[in-house]
């Protein structure tokens, strides 16, 4: 009798474990993506090469448009016939992503720039090798709020994603430019996904964060964009591609391939924006459905209304931009030790954009799923 109960228990657990690994594809992968296909032999590419195992390399991202080039590169490399497959690895928050990087569970990730600087200052061997985007954040307020200019926010409560975000530094920069005291606006740290809800519940008067969280309030009808980044800090940088120093030491060619892929993705997203922005619409469809689990319409809204709301060109990390961020971070005591550009940034991988191969193949999600079967 007792043996029977134990056996049933063991069998039930075995079934559960099998189902978990069968349907959740391993403990690390966060489910979001990727038909787990072996290098597709029946995709009709016509090239009957020996089925060489292509290397898979994970790159971390958060579902925000600042990281859009990551899933775009992932999708492109998954549907090409050669080279490394870059698998976009989804995280939900920066601390967890940071911990995965520190513990060497992941070698490359998109991350807010001041946090990467802070990691480098704390002795974590990481380098920013390329930018993920320009602009792409919005200062969003309630639709019926009276605010017109930055000064109107005095005495109000505005949410920021983290002290170690450039959105925080931007707010400080704006306070200074407007001759306002450092604490004239109450800044509170909040997880980005919670911000639109907090605005709707009037717990905060506004928030500044990477898209599409600004557009969520806008689309739902209770928020409006008070400022785009181009109005406050043109060429605003919030996130960059961060890799571990060991990867640079041991696999420079892999870093190069990744940076090339990110740069090509950026070019692809930009090259038809004056001509209907079809690429951005395609990207919204694929990334929204396969990677972010967000309504593609939301992404399309962010990427096309207007198209310079977020930009994917001019991605070279420059000393001038980063020094300005570093100075602000040190001034605000976000980083206590000033770091030289070379200590946290390695721009040697920035490619010659004219020489990059153009992205030709970007299949929509359903077609891709069919070709896998």
């Amino acid at each position: 009798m007792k043996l029977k109960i134990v056996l049933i228990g063991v069998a039930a657990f075995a079934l559960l474990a099998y189902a978990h690994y069968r349907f959740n594809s391993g403990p690390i992968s966060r489910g979001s993506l990727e038909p787990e296909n072996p290098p597709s032999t029946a995709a009709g590419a016509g090239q009957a090469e020996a089925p060489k195992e292509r290397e898979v390399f994970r790159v971390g991202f958060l579902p925000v448009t600042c990281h859009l080039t990551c899933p775009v590169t992932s999708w492109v490399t998954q549907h090409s016939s050669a080279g490394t497959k870059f698998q976009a690895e989804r995280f939900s928050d920066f601390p967890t992503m940071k911990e995965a990087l520190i513990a060497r569970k992941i070698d490359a990730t998109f991350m807010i720039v001041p946090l990467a600087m802070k990691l480098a200052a704390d002795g974590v061997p990481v380098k920013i090798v390329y930018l993920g985007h320009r602009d792409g954040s919005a200062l969003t307020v309630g639709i019926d709020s009276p605010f017109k200019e930055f000064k109107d926010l005095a005495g109000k409560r505005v949410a920021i994603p983290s002290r170690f975000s450039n959105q925080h530094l931007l707010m400080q920069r704006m306070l200074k430019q407007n001759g306002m005291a450092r604490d004239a606006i109450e800044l509170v740290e909040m997880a980005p996904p919670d911000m639109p809800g907090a605005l709707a519940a009037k717990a905060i008067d506004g928030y500044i964060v990477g898209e599409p969280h600004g557009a969520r309030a806008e689309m739902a009808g209770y928020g409006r964009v008070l400022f785009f980044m181009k109005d406050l800090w043109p060429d605003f940088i919030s996130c960059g591609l961060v890799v571990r120093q060991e990867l640079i030491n041991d696999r420079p060619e892999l870093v190069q391939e990744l940076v090339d892929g990110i740069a090509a993705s950026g070019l692809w997203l930009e090259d038809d924006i004056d001509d209907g922005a079809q690429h951005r619409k395609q990207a919204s469809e694929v990334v929204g459905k396969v990677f972010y689990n967000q309504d593609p319409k939301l992404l399309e809204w962010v990427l096309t209304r207007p198209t310079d709301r977020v930009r994917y060109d001019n991605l070279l990390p420059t000393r001038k931009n980063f020094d300005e961020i570093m100075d602000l971070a040190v001034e605000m005591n976000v980083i206590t030790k000033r770091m030289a550009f070379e200590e946290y940034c390695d721009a040697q991988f920035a490619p010659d954009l004219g020489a990059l191969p153009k992205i030709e193949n970007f299949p929509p999600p359903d077609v891709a799923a069919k070709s896998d079967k």
Partner: protein
Amino acid sequence: MSIPALVTAVVAAAVIVASRGLRQRAQAVVLPIFTGILLLAVWHLWAESTWYELATPGQPTRRVEVFPTPGRVLPAFAELASDGRIFRYIIASLFRVATGFGVAALIGIPLGLYAGWSTRGGYAIDPYIAALRPISPIAWIPISTLAFGIKDEAAIFIIFMGAFFPIVTGAATAVRSMPIAYVRAAHNFGLRKWELLRFVVFPAALPQIITSLRIALGIGWLVVVAAEMTAIQSGLGFLIVDARNMGMRYDLVVAGMIVIGAIGIGLDWLVRRLERLDSVRWGFSKE
């Protein structure tokens, strides 16, 4: 691998094994001390195993320390104490837990007594208590933010959610398991409904209620970290969440954990004192 830590671990383990021969009173002193030393040594060894050497061409080889050893956490305590932060945070967390727990007891005890006493009350309330109880308080965070914004109330609500259900269930079970002879005797003395509740049912249920309060307070303290994940800016939970947001301040994370653990012991000790009151003591066979 550090040799001193390894030797310490081996010696501590040897003392624990050898303490078999000591008298019980001596064991009560030796065992906790040396298990502590063993734990610290194992922590040290594990932390060091996460460190690695980085050799970059053209630069001196350097050691990267991933997880802090016990020795690295001590300065974090000093840092937290020097600006008084730790005391402000302890007060904030204690205040929130006291409030959340207090409200949970004020609502939970009468509700549980009613659910246990009245058949109709049990039918109406029981299934929903049973369904809501297994939901982790963390799941309430989004709702709490929407309802209470980013003020203290949001965190207090999370703690309330953790403490409330054990109290209701505890009180209800206490009444149900009360010997029916008490009620019959009370009826023979001609007690009215309210007198019955006040002088018979409540005192009879009290020992079990105290036990459920002890469990509930433990849970309330347990969820303080989750509760302070809401956008408030003080408290021991906030200390941990905030340290995670920084670059490499896992020393602060561990220091926060240790303080939470120590205060947890203190709180449990306090509630145990309640169990010694005369009006409660009869319910416990031991102590």
